């Protein structure tokens, strides 16, 4: 079984790639072997593009169009589409793929949907590993689509070499709240649904916020206007992505981000790995339940 999956991965067989991602996501014993088998030079060179923004802004539709453009350049494209898990049931509906089904029969477009699973750690670990598996199978770029709300989604965007924030007119006030945090991490600002009323105003708004924003490269934060549903503005967007990528590679920003992401993933994996043993200890009834839970945790970790 393990040989079969490793061979499938080497041969870029869709099933092998898909199984490998699952096994790593599930923290299977085979995960180490899978990740060690990847071609490092491909992983190092691949471009990872994060696309984030509020629900309904058009991220998946835009991703679909970006895929088409890169495919016309002969590139093999990977997509990790992250959707939130329901906090109540733990289940999730993963619907981003609907907008990308036009590429379903193209073996050089590898799309994987992933739920946040409300993990304490683990999401970055799982998504980071999935990105590398796709990169190792020859995908570049790899697009991570994620809804720009919540801490885990913000963390996951740190896995990207370049982050684009997608907004659209008419999405309501929650955008205001989102803007602050997301603008900080965004390298590119996209106003999608440029065919709708309010797009110009939103773009001007974002431009001024981007200019005000203190610190790094804010003057160059450019706003791209797109109509994803009609494929408009995608050429300009790709050119802007290329410019940012080239500048990040030259300035060392890309390397610095990858190092940060690496550390983040190590932390995430460590939390994932340590959790089961702690849960086991608690379940085995090792607690005397005296004093504050915090003290118990300290005691528990001392015994570790």
């Amino acid at each position: 079984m393990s040989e079969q999956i490793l061979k499938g991965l080497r041969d870029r067989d869709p099933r092998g790639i898909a199984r490998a991602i699952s096994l790593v996501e599930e923290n299977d014993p085979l995960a180490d072997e899978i990740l060690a088998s990847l071609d490092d030079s491909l992983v190092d060179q691949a471009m990872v593009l994060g696309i984030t923004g509020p629900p309904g802004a058009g991220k998946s539709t835009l991703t679909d169009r970006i895929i088409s453009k890169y495919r016309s350049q002969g590139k093999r494209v990977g997509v990790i589409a992250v959707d939130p898990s329901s906090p109540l049931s733990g289940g999730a509906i993963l619907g981003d793929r609907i907008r990308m089904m036009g590429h379903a029969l193209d073996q050089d477009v590898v799309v994987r949907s992933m739920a946040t699973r409300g993990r304490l750690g683990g999401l970055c670990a799982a998504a980071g590993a999935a990105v590398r598996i796709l990169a190792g199978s020859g995908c570049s770029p790899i697009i991570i689509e994620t809804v720009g709300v919540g801490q885990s989604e913000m963390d996951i965007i740190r896995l990207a070499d370049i982050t684009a924030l997608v907004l659209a007119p008419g999405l309501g006030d929650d955008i205001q709240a989102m803007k602050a945090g997301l603008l900080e991490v965004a390298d590119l600002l996209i106003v999608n649904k440029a065919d709708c009323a309010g797009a110009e105003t939103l773009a001007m708004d974002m431009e001024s916020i981007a200019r005000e924003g203190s610190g790094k490269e804010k003057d160059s934060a450019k706003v791209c206007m797109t109509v994803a549903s009609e494929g408009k503005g995608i050429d300009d967007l790709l050119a802007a992505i290329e410019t940012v990528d080239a500048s990040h590679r030259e300035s060392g920003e890309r390397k610095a981000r990858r190092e940060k992401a690496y550390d983040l993933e190590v932390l995430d994996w460590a939390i994932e790995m340590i959790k089961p043993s702690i849960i086991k200890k608690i379940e085995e009834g090792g607690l005397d339940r005296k004093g504050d839970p915090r003290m118990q945790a300290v005691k528990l970790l001392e015994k570790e």
Partner: protein
Amino acid sequence: MPEQKTYRVLIGKPGLDGHDRGAKFLARALRDAGFEVVYTGIRRTPEEIAAAAVQEDVSAVGLSSLSGAHLRLFPAVVEALKNSGAGDIPVLGGGVIPDEDIGLLKDAGINEVFTPGTPVEQIIAAFRSACETQEARRT
């Protein structure tokens, strides 16, 4: 506190009819029962559904059809999965399906068949059981 296994399933709607109320209802019911549901939308070819099921590495595929073309479309998905080297992924189907077709569909490799009268708990139990069997087979 023990972490329960989260199963991934795909819900697809092959064929030309554009009514996805049934498929969406099922997707939501499965989500509420703790499944991760990849939904592929309406008007998909059997080959597209199979390719998506492979890439998403789901443990089961659920199909919905209201158009009356289930006798052709459901087995076509089973066939497409086989052609993608994924004939082991169980396929379940539901929709407006006359009783006399149920046996035919099962003969064609459809794991379970649901009709508008099937209680949703029964559908969820069937998905869970199909996923468990598939998972056991893999390890």
